[in-house]
């Protein structure tokens, strides 16, 4: 019977295409993400193997602890002593031994503006310029730095900053702004810069002094003499190494760096995959819907086949075969479209300053397998239930004249199952969010799915009254066309509900994320009001590492409009056997400007050997004031600190542990302020203080001076950036849902051909007919929106309640935003109806009436 299926599909190419399109989009997203991740992976693989091409062995400190979540994700280790270099040079077989280091360096272009956007993407880095084969850069102009104020920069920075050899500019480093002369410009392999990062390279001793610590390097790289293997050299070097240092081969370092980078990007991959799965889920709904309708429409045909001797199994497999074809078409198109998606995402990342000059897109076999599996799997799974229904059609159905689609409320069993699913979903969500459940995230996911499926199961029961209520004003507002639209939305609640379900998922998630974002913003605003008693905040804008040098805060202190200024620093440490972010503020001025709301102890107790713990963290790890806690720092190793304070407010610093600046400087080598908080002098207006601070800040391009409102706006903007990204990704699910509504309408119109012909004959104008279909579409869309918003509000409430102890304690329903969502969804219903309604209005009346 396969040939019949194929013939049937070919006869309905258009529908095959629109049905497949729903899954295509999901698959495209999935394969696009995969392709991009592979491409990024390969880019960085190449980057590291190039950078370390001539490194045979690297000597470095043993890792103190693994990467810091949400900050620097590579292993944390201290710096090695430069005095080790002559020792290593004496080891037999070592040809070259050279120290290497990375530090924050922000180069200014010829226009005085900072180059690069480290807060968004690729870092801005300073490093020593090597004159050995260890240097992965090649000069394209000028020469190596000959004096302390000369630097070599990468070609990308030179282009972006319009800098050429001989120019003088400023670079912002830990030691404060430095005047430098561009001695040379270098390229990195075939690229202008490694991954779009900005590089400023000094003479080694200068790099140590300006970027890090004099006499220290991050690592020492070795080149072996000819004929000595990496492992051999590493073994020889180990013999002379002091305790706490290690020697690893170049191959191992390369592998490590590549793995760490891939891990850092795996978050991106997971994030995108979640949306691909949502898109596939919505696509699955649409396939289910389309197949359900076509099976109902083909009741007579299938009855006839059964009467002529086709077995149930044959009917079942003919429907499934159709799903297989849809799945294959969808996957094939999806994989092809995936390349487009990947290119688009790549362009987006380039917008963030992350340059992936790969030349070729990486298309792995696993991308193909996974995409086909997903596309085919979703199509078949969604078609199983309609196929079984088709197989159950009795031969006698061939004799029935009219197909009457089920229009009931749904059976009692169905209602029970739906309510049970809802109950399971809601309770597992609440348990996981509010209680103490292992694997909470997975349980929440299952709960979310169960809620969606529960509401979809109850859909046809809810649909009729919902259509009636939502459509109530239509007859009055839109006359006969409106009345008919409402009747049409009500005539097959099962179908209306099913097409609305797909949209419900998209809108539900949009509603949820909107509420979460609004609640986060109000919570952060409230926290800033509570805790920041200062007037101005200066943001270094340096990204994950680096910041503004400590001299900046000191200079602000001497400005007459400023009463005092105090810097905030961040770092990572292993505390109570967990790697955590720590913040540091001055014990006096810092806590005077940031009120962390002490619960136990206070700022006056904070000193060199103490630590403060956020209330929620203290509960989690069971710490109280007076406890001794083991803390591992990368620079100073294991230390024991005393808990001197428990604090109630983690905003605006957002770290669960705080140190006094004394303790920070005793344990960290870095001297960068990430933020500087300013209290204006008495009697000075905020505007005057702002102007005074900005004058000083003008010498530090790239940093931002904000007043309290600006600071709040910046926090809100960060939330909005994420929100915008999530909206864009969820738009995909909504587009698929709209395709689904369009498809349902087209199928319904096909079914109602004669009726439409009759309406046209007795005097319905084309415009009225279009209006009828349009409003039916709007009703379906509104139904999905209303259900989605109800679910979204519930999800939002549940998560905000669960996050109350994480500082998101203000549940906010952004009414205007949600109304906008509803209006957009209704308008989208109009768009979805455009094609079907146009086709319907062009119907030939006579043919339509004669239609069987």
């Amino acid at each position, binding site marked *: 019977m396969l040939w019949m299926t194929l013939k049937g599909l070919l006869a309905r190419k258009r529908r095959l295409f629109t049905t497949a399109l729903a899954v295509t989009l999901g698959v495209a997203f999935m394969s696009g993400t995969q392709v991009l991740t592979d491409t990024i992976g390969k880019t960085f693989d190449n980057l590291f193997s190039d950078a370390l091409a001539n490194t045979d062995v690297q000597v470095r400190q043993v890792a103190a602890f693994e990467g810091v979540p949400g900050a620097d994700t590579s292993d944390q280790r201290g710096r090695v002593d430069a005095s080790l270099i002559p020792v290593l040079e004496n080891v037999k077989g070592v040809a070259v031994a050279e120290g290497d280091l990375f530090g924050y360096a922000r180069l200014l272009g010829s226009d005085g503006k900072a180059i690069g956007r480290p807060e968004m993407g690729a870092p801005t880095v300073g490093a020593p310029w090597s004159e050995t084969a260890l240097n992965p850069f090649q000069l394209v102009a000028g020469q190596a730095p000959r004096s302390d104020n000369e630097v070599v920069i990468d070609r990308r920075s030179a282009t972006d900053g319009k800098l050429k050899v001989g120019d003088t500019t400023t670079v912002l480093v830990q030691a404060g702004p430095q005047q430098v002369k561009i001695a040379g410009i270098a390229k990195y392999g075939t690229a202008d810069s490694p991954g779009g990062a900005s590089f400023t390279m000094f003479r080694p001793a200068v790099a140590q002094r300006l970027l890090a610590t004099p006499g220290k390097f991050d690592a020492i790289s070795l080149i072996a003499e000819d004929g000595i293997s990496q492992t051999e050299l590493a073994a020889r070097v180990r013999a002379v190494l002091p305790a706490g240092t290690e020697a690893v081969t170049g191959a191992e370092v390369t592998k490590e760096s590549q793995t760490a980078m891939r891990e850092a990007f795996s978050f991106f991959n997971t994030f995108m995959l979640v949306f691909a799965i949502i898109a596939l889920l919505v696509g699955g709904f649409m396939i289910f819907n389309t197949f359900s309708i076509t099976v109902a429409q083909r009741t007579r045909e299938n009855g006839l086949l059964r009467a002529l001797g086709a077995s149930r199994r044959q009917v079942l497999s003919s429907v499934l075969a159709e799903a297989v074809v849809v799945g294959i078409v969808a996957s094939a198109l999806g994989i092809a479209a995936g390349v487009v998606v990947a290119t688009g995402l790549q362009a987006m990342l380039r917008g963030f300053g992350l340059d992936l000059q790969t030349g070729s897109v990486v298309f792995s076999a696993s991308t193909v397998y996974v995409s086909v599996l997903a596309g085919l799997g979703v199509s078949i799974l969604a078609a199983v239930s309609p196929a079984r229904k088709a197989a159950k059609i009795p031969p006698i159905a061939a004799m029935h004249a009219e197909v*009457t689609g089920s229009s009931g409320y749904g059976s009692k069993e169905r209602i029970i199952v739906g309510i049970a699913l809802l109950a399971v979903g809601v309770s597992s969500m609440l348990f996981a969010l509010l209680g103490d459940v292992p694997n909470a995230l997975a349980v929440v996911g299952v709960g979310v799915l169960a809620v969606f499926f529960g509401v979809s199961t109850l859909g046809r029961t809810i649909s009729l009254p919902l259509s009636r209520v939502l459509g109530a004003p239509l007859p009055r507002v839109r*006359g*006969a066309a409106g*009345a*008919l639209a409402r*009747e*049409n939305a*009500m*005539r097959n609640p099962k179908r209306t509900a099913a097409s609305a379900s797909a949209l419900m998922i998209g809108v539900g998630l949009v509603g949820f994320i909107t509420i979460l974002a609004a609640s986060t913003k109000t919570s952060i605003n409230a926290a800033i009001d509570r805790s920041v008693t200062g007037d101005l905040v200066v943001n270094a804008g340096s990204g994950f590492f680096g910041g503004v040098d400590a001299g900046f805060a000191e200079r602000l202190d001497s400005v007459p409009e400023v009463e005092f200024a105090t810097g905030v620093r961040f770092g990572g440490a292993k505390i109570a056997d967990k790697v955590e972010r720590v913040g540091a503020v001055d014990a006096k001025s810092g806590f005077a400007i940031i009120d962390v709301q002490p619960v136990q102890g206070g700022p006056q107790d904070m000193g060199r050997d103490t630590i403060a713990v956020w209330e929620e963290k203290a509960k989690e790890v069971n710490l109280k004031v007076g406890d001794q806690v083991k803390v591992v720092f990368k620079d100073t190793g294991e230390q024991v600190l005393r808990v001197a304070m428990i604090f109630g407010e983690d905003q605006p610093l957002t770290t669960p542990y705080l140190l006094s600046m004394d303790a920070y400087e005793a344990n960290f080598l870095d001297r960068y302020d990430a933020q500087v908080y300013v209290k204006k002098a008495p009697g000075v207006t905020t505007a005057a203080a702002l102007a005074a601070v900005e004058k000083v800040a003008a010498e530090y391009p790239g940093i931002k001076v904000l007043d309290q409102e600006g600071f709040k706006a910046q926090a809100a903007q960060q939330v909005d950036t994420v929100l915008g990204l999530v909206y864009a990704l969820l738009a995909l699910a909504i587009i698929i849902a709209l395709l689904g509504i369009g498809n349902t309408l087209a199928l319904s119109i096909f079914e109602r051909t*004669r*009726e439409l012909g*009759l*309406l*046209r*004959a*007795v*005097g*319905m*104008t*084309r*415009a*009225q007919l279009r209006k009828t279909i349009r409003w039916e579409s709007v009703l379906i869309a509104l139904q999905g929106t209303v259900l989605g918003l109800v679910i979204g509000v519930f999800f939002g409430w549940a998560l905000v309640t669960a996050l109350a102890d994480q500082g998101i304690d203000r549940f906010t329903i952004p009414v205007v935003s949600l109304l906008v969502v509803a209006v957009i969804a209704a308008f989208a219903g109009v768009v979805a109806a455009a094609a079907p309604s146009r086709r319907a209005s062009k119907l030939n*009346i*006579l043919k339509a*009436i004669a239609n069987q």
Partner: protein
Amino acid sequence: MAERVATAVAPASTVAARTLAATKIYGKGQTEVRALDGVSVEFPQGQFTAIMGPSGSGKSTLLNCIAGLDTLTSGQAFVAGADLSTLNDNQLTILRRDRVGFIFQAYNLVPTLTARENITLPMTLAGRKGDKAWIDTVVEVMKIGDRLNHRPAELSGGQQQRVAVARALAGRPAIIFADEPTGNLDSRAGAEVLAFMRRAVEDMGQTIVMVTHDPTAASYADRILFLADGRVVDEMLEPTAERVLERMKRFGE
């Protein structure tokens, strides 16, 4: 055979619809079919006309072209004084809505609407209420007063066609076109519907044009036009079933 003008030319005001050399050609060249070949007919007001003829004689095409459902290749068709060839789709639609009534063989009613809503559908589409007293009269004549709140699926075939007749009458159109209105009914229900249509002509002065191939149905008309090969070939006034049968038999010769 020469074309015959069916009736003596009546004054324009008493003609509900007419055609002038109406020609309809389907296809082109070799496959060209002349469904109507220069038909000029008039349908006087208050008259019940039946159109008969063998399959392919063009009777349905003629009906569709005068009713504004199809367009002529050449010639003219007038309904209520309007030249259909000068009207665009929208104007044609409004003409059908306001000036023409329709009764089809089957599938006359919108399934989502009740009988009452179906009857007033053209007026609702026009955004008008309609003449309530008149509609009540029509409903009473058609004997469907107790079925008004039912949907089509809950009505018998005969009842559905009576609702369709009521809808056609409700707007007091200039003319009603009926295409095999009893084709799907058993003889008793068919006779009932035809009797109602007859009453509409006699008691309400309605003009009806009906296409049928059933001599009994045709015998309810005031006159019969016979079509063959796209031309009017004969006319019969005050027909009876027997005479019609006799005449139809001659087409077979």
